[in-house]
Structure formats: structure tokens, C-alpha cells
């Protein structure tokens, strides 16, 4: 009974946490992208435009959410939630503190990698259900991209698991050694790049390619449903940064106490900013380049890294 109550409590806490990360993420992206483009970001909604995303969200909540009449209505209405729930559940297994994670299961690292993959199905059906050529093209691209980038992402975390000896994220964070940074540098690079692709951002934002498919799979969504897709994207970035900081850098380099927490937050914000920085400085890949990059570059690097990790852990 106690864990059931704790689950519901954590559900509310996670919802608020995800909403906050999305609020911070959107505002932070518009400010960073603005400064990268020699202009200021939002300024007029509250001090330094902090309330800008709040204004956007409130407006989107009360905006009319249109359902196209040719759309497959039940599927159309369900898809935002089918995309949101998997990526939100990824928050549950991130080891926030040393030795503590909201849901400390045995294979929580693999849970974090596998469950957001369900979002690919949601994006595919979202594009298909909106009965729109751009939407279906975006959905098909999303499915192909997410599936093919899961492999390098999983392999890179696998080399971490090999070194740590356990597949639970909390265990990995506990068993973190400082020399892992040197050995697992390529693994982190592969993890970082493939998590950008997993979240459809940066050079890999083909499913929602603005200059080609107008808006990709959520082209026909408006109002609160579209806001959920945006929340999925931004919470996905923060989740990937949180997990990267927690496992690859041992959550603040393993330093106990408030300094460790401070470092942990700093790493997360740094990774989020890097994802924004990469998005706004690189053009978009072509679908065939996207696929060949995943299969011919990232996967071999991750496999070699796995071999190195195996050898090192055997020493």
C-alpha cells in the first residue's frame, strides 16, 4: 500500500518536475539561441523574459485544439499522451541523489533507454492519423530515426554497465570512478549524439524539419496537444542531460554534500546548453546521411568502446 501511495505522490511530483523542466528548457533555448544570433531573447514578459514560457503555455492551454475532420479521431487524440508517457516515465529511474532514485529497480539503466523508444510509435501514428502528407512523412522519418539511433545509445550505456558491473542506474552512479571519464569519453560522445537524435533535435530534427515538412508529425496539432509534444521534446533534452550527468560523470564527480548537487545541476545545464548550441549551429542532415551516420559511424565506435570497456574491466 505504501509504495502505491508513493507512486501516486511521485506521479504528481514528476508531472510538476517535467512541466518545470519544459518551462525552463523553452525559455533557456530562446535566450541562448537569441544570444547566438546576436539578438536578445524574450525580454518583456517578466524580468529577462522569464515568464515568457508561462505566457506561451497559458495561451496554448486555452487555445482551440483543432481535430481535422479527415483525421482518425481517436488515434489523433490519443497520440500526444502515447508520446508523453514513455518519455515522462524515463524521469522515474534517473539517480538524482547518491544511492537514491525514485524507482530503484534492478535494470533501471536499460529501462531509461528502452521505454522512451515507445515514443517512436506515437510519433508515427500521430503523423499518420492527422491525414496530412507532411505529417505522415514526418511520422515515418521519426520512426526510422528513433529506431536506428537507439542501438548506438544502448551500446554506449552498455559499456558503462560493463565497467560498473550492474545495470541499475543507482548502482552505476555508486560505482563511479574518476578514471571512467578517460576510458568512456567516446562512449559519452556517442551517447550524447544519439540522445540528440532520440529527442529529434539539432542536426537530426528531420521528423519536424521546419524548412521541409513545415512542422513534421505534429503539423496538424494545435493548442494543448501541440504543447504536450513540445513538453516531450524539452523534457527529453533535460532527461538525457540528467542521465548523462548522473551516470557518466557520477553525479557531480562523486563528491558528497551540497557541492556534488551543485556540480550535478551545473553538468545538466551544461549538457542542455550544448544540445541547444548544436541545434542552432548545424544544418540538418539528409535522411540517407542520417541513417549512414548511425549505422556506419556511431555503432562501430560504440562497439569498439564496449570492447575497450570489457578489456579494462577484466584487468
Amino acid at each position, binding site marked *: 500500500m505504501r509504495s502505491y501511495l508513493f507512486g501516486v505522490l511521485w506521479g504528481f511530483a514528476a508531472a510538476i518536475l517535467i512541466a518545470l523542466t519544459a518551462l525552463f528548457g523553452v525559455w533557456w533555448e530562446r535566450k541562448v*539561441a537569441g544570444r*547566438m*544570433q*546576436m*539578438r536578445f531573447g524574450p525580454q518583456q514578459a517578466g524580468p529577462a523574459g522569464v515568464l515568457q514560457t508561462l505566457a506561451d503555455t497559458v495561451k496554448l492551454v486555452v487555445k482551440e485544439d483543432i481535430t481535422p475532420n479527415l483525421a482518425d479521431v481517436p488515434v489523433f487524440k490519443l497520440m500526444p499522451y502515447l508520446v508523453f508517457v514513455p518519455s515522462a516515465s524515463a524521469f522515474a529511474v534517473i539517480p538524482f541523489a547518491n544511492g537514491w532514485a525514485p524507482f530503484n529497480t534492478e535494470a533501471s539503466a536499460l529501462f531509461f533507454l528502452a521505454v522512451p523508444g515507445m515514443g517512436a510509435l506515437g510519433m508515427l501514428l500521430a503523423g499518420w492519423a492527422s491525414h496530412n*502528407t*507532411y505529417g505522415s*512523412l514526418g511520422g515515418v522519418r521519426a520512426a526510422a530515426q528513433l529506431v536506428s539511433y537507439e542501438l548506438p545509445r544502448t551500446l554506449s550505456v552498455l559499456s558503462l554497465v560493463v565497467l560498473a558491473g550492474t545495470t541499475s542506474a543507482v548502482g552505476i552512479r555508486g560505482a563511479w570512478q574518476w578514471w571512467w571519464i578517460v576510458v568512456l569519453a567516446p562512449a559519452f560522445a556517442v551517447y550524447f549524439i544519439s540522445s540528440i537524435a532520440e529527442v529529434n533535435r539539432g*542536426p537530426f*530534427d*528531420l521528423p519536424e*524539419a*521546419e*524548412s*521541409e515538412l*513545415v512542422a513534421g508529425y505534429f503539423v496538424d496539432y494545435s493548442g494543448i496537444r501541440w504543447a504536450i509534444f513540445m513538453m516531450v521534446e524539452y523534457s527529453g533534452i533535460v532527461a538525457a542531460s540528467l542521465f548523462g550527468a548522473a551516470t557518466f560523470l557520477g553525479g557531480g564527480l562523486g563528491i558528497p554534500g551540497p557541492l556534488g548537487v551543485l556540480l550535478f545541476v551545473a553538468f545538466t545545464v551544461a549538457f542542455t546548453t550544448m544540445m541547444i548550441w548544436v541545434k*542552432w*549551429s*548545424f*544544418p*540538418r*542532415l*539528409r*535522411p*540517407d*546521411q542520417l541513417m549512414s551516420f548511425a549505422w556506419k559511424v556511431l555503432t562501430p565506435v560504440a562497439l569498439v568502446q564496449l570492447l575497450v570497456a570489457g578489456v579494462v574491466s577484466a584487468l
Partner: protein
Amino acid sequence: MPDQEFNQELVVNVGPQHPSTHGVGRILLNLDGDIVRKAELIIGHLHRGIEKMAENRTYLQVVPLTDRLDYVGSMYANWAYCRAVEKAAAIDVPERAEYLRVIVCEMQRIASHMMSVGSSGADSGAFTVFVYAFDLRERIVELFEQLCGARLTYSYVRPGGVAFDAPDGWADAVLAEMRKLPTGLEELDKLLFGNVIARGRLKGVGIMSTEQAIAWGATGPVARGSGVALDIRRQDAYSVYPRIGFDVVVGDNGDAYDRARCRLLECFESVRIIEQAITQMPEGPILTDGIPRLIAPPKGDAYARIESARGTLGVYTVSDGGAKPYRVHFRSPAFCNVSLISRLAPSHVLSDLGVILGSLDPVFGEVDR
């Protein structure tokens, strides 16, 4: 035949309102999966009938119409029209006005190329390149504002000369700006063409051979990207261009990368031209006096062409001796270049469509007239 209607091609309408059609062009695509099988260009969404309007206006009143033709570069639209009228009415142009025209049109070429290079970056997804290119363009538009008060539609070049003389200090401001510009252009070069993903997206896309470029009627950077050394400034040697040293930038393998790169390198040439023109510019009148308010050229035809940022911009006027032109026709380079999309797009991926259209650099005011 059952399998006939099974592999039906997906018809996608890249509609008149689309981020990467550079205006109001519409492309009907037949897609087989992601591969473009057939691309049909549908234009005319901005057809205002400027040639019909020109028939009911005096020769001087047509100048503001030419601004709205190629609104990204209205300086050389004015110049082409004024050269045709001067040829028809045998008006000569003072020396200083010729130099001012060359300076202003080369600055307009840089501003127009910044728009084109920036948007070819934005088509391939690098939005920051568009912002940086527009920053360079804003510097030049500011100088235009000091010269003739307008940011986009200047009506600066008039039959027989130019409208305003350069305010004092303007020439030095332009020289100072031209010294700073090459660093901005090199930075843009590194930002877009130095980027490995941008090179991957632009190279080998929309390849057009030299013979095809000539046969299909491509002019300007689109033709020069395929190795056609066609530059009207060199070929006709009009105005004061013979006294100014510059060389024609020619690409070699005719893909979107070469076309965009030719535009950027041409900006370096334009900076050289402007610096030489400002140093050589004499003092003197800027408008031939004695031009009647109602120019009435003798009966007959006249055709004049100049090298605009998009290619050979020609103006053909027929006059019946009256105060209004009997017929004005604009040989629009953007119109000839943009109709290449239906020949270049097939067998490319959908993502390349925006890149190819961007490399042809259409401005639909001039395409649709």
C-alpha cells in the same frame, strides 16, 4: 493491372505558402517514397501585371514599378529600365551618375547575395547562417537609407542620372563599411561552407552541366556555377565597368554548393569594385539637365540589359512617340532560373528540393511580374 495502381506515387503539394519556396511559388511533387519523380512548378501567385500597368504610365512613373519587380535588389531593376529608356530617347548620363550607379548596384548585389546565401543556409536547416547573412545585409541597407531614404524600394536611378547626390561623408562611410565587410564574409564562409554537414547537404545536389545551363537559359550565378563564364558586365562592358578591374567567379561542377559559393565569392569582387569606383568617382552633376518631364522617345524599339544578382536582366521597350511606353517587357533572370526546378529536382530526395530551389535563388516579384 493490380500492381499499377498499387505503387501510386504520393502527390505532395509544396504550396505557395511554404518556408523554403522563397516566396509564393508552388511545386507539385510526385514522390516515390522520399525520391522526387516529377516536380511541376506552378507560379503566378504574385502576378500583378506590371507590364500592363507600365503601358498606362509615363516613362518616369514606371521607375517605382521596377522597384517592386525584384524587391531584394531594386537598384539594378531601376538601372536596367533607365538604360533602356536612355537608349530609346538618346539621353546621355553624366560621369558621376554612372559611378554612383555602379557603386549602388554593386552594394545591392552584395545585399541580394547575402539574402540568397543566408536562405540557402536556412533551407538546409542552419538558421543562424541566415541571421548572420542578414546582419551583413542590414549594414548595406543602412547605407542605402542614408543615401536615398528608403530601405527596400529606392527608385534611386532615374532616366538620365540618379535622384540624389551622395551626402557628404557617405562615400567614406561606404569605404569604411567595405573594409569591414570581407571579414564578415569570411566568417559567413566558414560558418556555412566550412561546416561539414552543410557541405554534405549542398555538394552533388542539383547538378547542371555547362551545355544544359546554356540550353535551358540559365544566367547569372546559376549559370556561372556550372562553368558558363557569362557576365554581362564583362560581355557588354557597359557604363564605367571597363575602367574597373574585377574578375568573373566561375564554379566547375554546377551543383548547389558551387552556385551558392559563386554568390559569396562574387561579394568579394563587388567589394573590390566599390572601392575602385569610389576612388575614381569625379565631382560634377548627377542628372543630365534638359530632360523633359515627359520623356517621349522617337518611335522604335530599344533593349538594354545589365548583370543583376540573379543574371541577365533585360528591358525591352517599344515606343510609339507618345509620353507613355507602348510596351515594356522585362527579361527576368529569376523567371528563367526558377523554371529549371522541374528539370533539376527529379531523382533527388525531398529534403534536397528546398536546397535546389534555394540555389536557384528565385524572387517571385520578378518571376511573376
